[in-house]
């Protein structure tokens, strides 16, 4: 911390900006790895993503649509360990192992698409409201208030039900519902960050509003959004599984919610596997992203870094 000006005769070793940024990245990584819960969450996510990526290798993709469950009508309700069906089959002969793996792919696509759309829309709306303010802020935020007054699940359910059962409609319904809270988070952050003197300093320099927003306001406001988005990566899969479970997705899709729904009838008959494995996957997926999201909060704050 003590940096007494060094005499010019001293050789000064200057580190370039990329080394500094790299070191900061390394520091962040080191801190992630040092926190046991974040690390556990990260391991879970890595494992699930590996499953998703390796799904075509570990299983024979169904033709023509690999996202449809393959049906083995000869082996219905087969218990785990059955040759060819390591995790058993459903009452309609769907291979649970296949469903678990390709369900991970479905979930990955789903959460990336929905989080991508909602974060973008939410950030734009929240930024307009918070950064420009005034009447625009009033209009946008009252709209957000109205949308927030409707319970998320019921709202998504209503939209999906109106549009008819299809997985694409679930993605659409979730996107419509989830952007609202990002808008609210980012607006609050921006209003807070806007008051910092470095924003005034940038105005005194004469930088444009857009540049001030991109350089000063947004980077300092985005952390809670990233944290929330990480947690929502898990939460969205959970909500989508719920919607699928109650039948708002097309039947036969390799999706965990659909599988749980298919298998639940058999639970009372002792055929536990068809619901349990996909259910466990949903649980792990949500848990992994929640743990990481929680850990990101401290890691992303530049002020908490050790000097």
């Amino acid at each position, binding site marked *: *911390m*003590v*940096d007494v*000006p*060094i005499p010019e005769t001293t050789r*000064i*070793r*200057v*580190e*370039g*900006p990329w*080394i*500094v940024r790299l070191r*900061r990245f390394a520091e962040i990584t080191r801190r992630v790895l040092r926190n046991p819960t974040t690390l556990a969450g990260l391991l879970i996510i890595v494992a699930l993503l590996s499953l998703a990526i390796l799904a075509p290798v570990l299983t024979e993709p169904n033709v023509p649509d690999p996202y449809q469950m393959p049906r083995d009508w000869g082996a219905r309700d087969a218990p785990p360990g059955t040759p060819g069906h390591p995790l058993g089959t459903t009452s309609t002969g769907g291979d649970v192992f296949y469903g678990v793996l390709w369900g991970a792919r479905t979930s990955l696509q789903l959460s990336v698409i929905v989080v991508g759309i909602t974060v973008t829309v939410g950030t734009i709306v929240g930024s307009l409201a918070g950064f420009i303010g005034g009447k625009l802020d009033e209009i946008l935020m009252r709209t957000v208030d109205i949308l927030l007054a409707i319970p998320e699940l019921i709202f998504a359910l209503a939209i999906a039900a109106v549009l008819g059962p299809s997985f694409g409609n679930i993605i659409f319904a979730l996107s419509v519902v989830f952007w609202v809270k990002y808008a609210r988070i980012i607006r609050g952050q921006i209003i807070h960050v806007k008051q*910092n*003197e*470095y924003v*005034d*300093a*940038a*105005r*005194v*320099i*004469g*930088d444009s509003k857009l*540049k001030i927003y991109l*350089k*000063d306001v947004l*980077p*300092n406001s985005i952390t809670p959004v990233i944290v929330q988005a990480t947690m929502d990566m898990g939460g969205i899969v959970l909500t989508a599984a719920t919607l699928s479970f109650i039948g708002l997705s097309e039947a036969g899709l390799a999706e965990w919610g659909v599988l749980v729904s298919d298998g639940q009838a058999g639970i009372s008959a002792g055929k536990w596997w068809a619901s349990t494995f996909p259910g466990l996957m949903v649980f792990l997926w949500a848990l992994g992203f929640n743990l990481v999201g929680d850990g990101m909060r401290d890691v992303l704050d*530049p*002020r908490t*870094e050790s*000097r």
Partner: protein
Amino acid sequence: MTTMTPDVTDSTRAGAPVMTLRNVQKYFPIKEGALQRVVGHVRAVDGVSLDIHRGETVGLVGESGCGKTTLGRCISGLTDPTAGGIYFRLSTEDRARLDSLLDTPPEQLSAEDKAFIDRIDRAHRIDRMSPEQRRIYRRNCQVVFQDAFSSLNPRQLVKDIVARPLRVYREASGHELTERTVALLESVGLGRQHLYRYPHQFSGGQRQRISIARALALDPEFIVLDEPTSALDVSVQAQILNLLHELQRERGLTYLFISHDLGVVRLMADRIAVMYLGEVVEQGTVEDIFERPLHPYTEALLAANPDINAAPGESMRGLEGNVPDPANPPQGCRFHTRCPVATPICGWEVDDAVQWLTDQARLFDTLTAVERLSEFDATLVFEDEESAAEVAGRLTAGAVPPPMAAATEAVEPQGQRVRIRMRPVERVELEDLGGSHLTSCVLYTSRRRDVDPGYTTKLTAE
């Protein structure tokens, strides 16, 4: 380095005006209720006129809430004044003509005069300037903020922070940009080794140096220093003050030094303006203000300021009462409510009587309403006749400050009601007492002859 237009050549002369403020006001609306209806205004800055000349340091002193920071923000273009003009590089000739025109009622202005005002506004008035002029003004007026922790973007490297002005004006890029940034850092006592670090890796004093380097990047003419050292420790403050002085000498900078610390201002400023509740109450050279203060508020500030060289018990006298509400400032001289040498013509109003009542526990509880006709004429309504009678009695019998009693023209009890009428007063104005020493205190200005001699002798006796 800067593109000169015919209008601004004058300012390159030493001593030419850099900033000229005329009757600057900044009001902030107070909003209430769901509809955000405006119910009043906080008068943060209320009619300030000031000249800042090339190469000098003007100190702006006052307590929290006096409007000094708001005035600084108006001058640096961060917020537009509600009324009044802030002119950049107005020549002395133009200034003289403008002053005479501003004194003339608008309806008496000729078309030629109006054209002149319009031309001056386009060329010099910072909130009405043409975009080219605005650019020149923007480059030449920079700010160093009080809080070195919030004035640097925590996610930018020092190089990006200091080089940013150069990038915005496309002054340099690539290797040249780096070298000029290093030169800037070196001019504030930092160096090449600090280029690629984040602000949080620096101590408070170093961060303030980074802020100063950023302000210097465009080689400005004028810098607003808004409490630049009040967040620092004394030993570090001394480093920064020395640095600021050296930079001023080397680069011929003009400073507006805003501070609540009289010791610091005394050291750094050539001229000082003392603010109280949105107004400048006294203005003069450092010697004038510190050796021959001509306003009781300045005297009070000096008396309250702890002096390290003073023996215990020698210094530090405080002021009674609180700073009044800037949304509803006192009439006349705004300092009269706390002034130890107030006179009957200082602006006593009905609110002062009500304020006096709030300190009288028993009587205040019985006050139910105040019906105002004006600031100087109102009826107080009490729960019972006895209280009304007692208040009337005490208001006339000298329980209140003598100048307030003297300013009271009539106290008329009628049952539960007491009507109070005070002698109306006008607003006090700054007056030049010679040698550019300005004060608004009626004890020294031309209104001195209106003051009861009893009060002026009391002052000289002290």
